[in-house]
């Protein structure tokens, strides 16, 4: 869209950054900083865990999980850089979808992590592998390696917990599903640490199956998160109905857009097709004019601007006047058929 075609035309197709309000810009800055801290913290964790892991299956699994948990922050940082670019002829819809791709990467990381951990634990249990955990000599003192593992797990799990909570809050402000998945994973990392500690101490008490059982419990919950995020990210990338940042419900903005359109005196009925482009929404609003009324260019442009002002997430609005809505109404939001889904 060209700037000369109407007011607000430029911001409708600007870069992801242009869409943000001051609150979102600040949130994005903080999120980028948090993700850099996450990468630094996890890198140290990976080295520390590798040093004490030895022959413990649970510790090796925890290490693999730590390596994988580097993926979402990297995906987020790459995507955050991509969305700064403005749309061009080769990318007429802009670069917001980078967020969707990053979300897919994060989901697959969760799924791989959960699957690896689950298979590994089951194998350990089935083949009755008793983890040997011996002695470490540290500065001339002999210490059971299990205690070192516990110490490392306690220290390294502080980061994901603190960072995860901060990222969770930002992911709602930014409507950022990558950040949400990453924060979710941070929490998974914490419970992995707790389970690993329980497992190591269990092994120390002579219960050889303790760490594999603990790891299995954690892996099931990670798998569940992975499946949910995979469905969410594929839904977004395949133009599914826009949903809230945590995938829990259809996004209420779709209904608000329709209600705003129906509030116009010349509009009889309206239905919006809204998709999540990553941070921002693209909306196609089909409007049926009141019988006898002729939609004017001014009226359409004014409606477009009013819908644009509803929320910063409404980023690219197309108003399409139609004589009637299709009888099958396939693009009507599920919010209409499921009023209970509204928050």
């Amino acid at each position, binding site marked *: 869209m060209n700037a000369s075609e109407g007011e607000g035309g430029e911001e409708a197709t600007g870069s992801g950054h242009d869409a943000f309000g001051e609150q979102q810009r600040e949130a994005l800055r903080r999120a980028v900083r948090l993700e850099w801290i996450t990468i630094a913290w996890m890198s140290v964790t990976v080295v520390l865990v590798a040093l004490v892991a030895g022959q413990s299956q649970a510790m090796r699994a925890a290490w693999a999980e730590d390596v994988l948990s580097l993926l979402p922050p990297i995906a987020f940082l790459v995507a955050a850089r991509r969305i700064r670019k403005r749309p061009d002829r080769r990318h007429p819809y802009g670069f917001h979808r980078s967020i969707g791709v990053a979300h897919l990467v994060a989901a697959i990381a969760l799924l791989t992590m959960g699957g690896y951990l689950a298979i590994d634990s089951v194998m350990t249990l089935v083949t009755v592998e008793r983890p040997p955990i011996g002695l470490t000599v540290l500065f001339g003192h002999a210490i059971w390696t299990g205690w070192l593992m516990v110490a490392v797990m306690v220290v390294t799990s502080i980061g994901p917990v603190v960072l995860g909570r901060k990222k969770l809050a930002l992911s709602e402000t930014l409507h950022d599903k990558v950040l949400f998945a990453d924060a979710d994973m941070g929490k998974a990392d914490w419970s992995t640490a707790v389970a690993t500690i329980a497992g190591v101490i269990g092994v120390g008490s002579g219960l050889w199956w303790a760490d594999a059982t603990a790891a299995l419990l*954690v892996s099931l919950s*990670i798998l569940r998160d992975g499946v949910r995020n995979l469905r969410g990210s594929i839904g977004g990338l395949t133009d599914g109905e826009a949903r809230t940042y945590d995938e829990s419900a259809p996004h209420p903005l779709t209904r608000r857009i329709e209600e705003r359109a129906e509030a116009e005196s010349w509009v009889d009925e309206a239905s919006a097709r809204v998709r999540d482009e990553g941070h921002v929404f693209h909306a196609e609003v089909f409007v049926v004019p009141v019988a006898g009324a002729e939609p004017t260019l001014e009226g359409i442009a004014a409606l477009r601007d009013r819908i644009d002002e509803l929320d910063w997430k409404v980023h690219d609005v197309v108003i399409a006047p139609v004589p009637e809505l299709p009888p099958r109404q396939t693009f009507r939001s599920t919010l209409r058929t499921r009023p209970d889904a509204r928050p």
Partner: protein
Amino acid sequence: MSDPRVLRALLVSVAATLLLVGCQGGLPADPQGTLVRATGGVLRVGVSENPPWTELASDGTVGGSEVELLTDYAETIDAEVEWVPAGENTLAAMMREGQLDVVVGGLASDVPWTSEIATTRPYTTTIGPDGAEVKIAVGVRPGENALMTDIERFLAERGEEL
């Protein structure tokens, strides 16, 4: 893990385990109780011939530096040593069946029998045929962590690491 109840349950189980351990005293323990059984009793040691670590005489007696090592260790827990000379793969199979407690024979710390034999931390090094450094360790029944740490402590003290 979005369900806080699961997390709480895990935390409680950790706390309970810690408490339990605190009451018993002494980590780690053996799943099969090997160290307790061998103390004041019999320690079953498999010997794979590999001079100078282990040597088999024609009359069936065993010798070598690791045989001396294990004899000295057995004294610290007041145990008799039952020597079982055989090939490495036979010893691994016996270990799997629970017929042995320890295996010696100049084992490299990265032995291929990881599910049958757990190695202690290396107590010395030698040079392999390819000129690379080989770390030498003692083989223990996997998971018998009380026995393993006890032997490791003995080896570390003997090597004046402690």
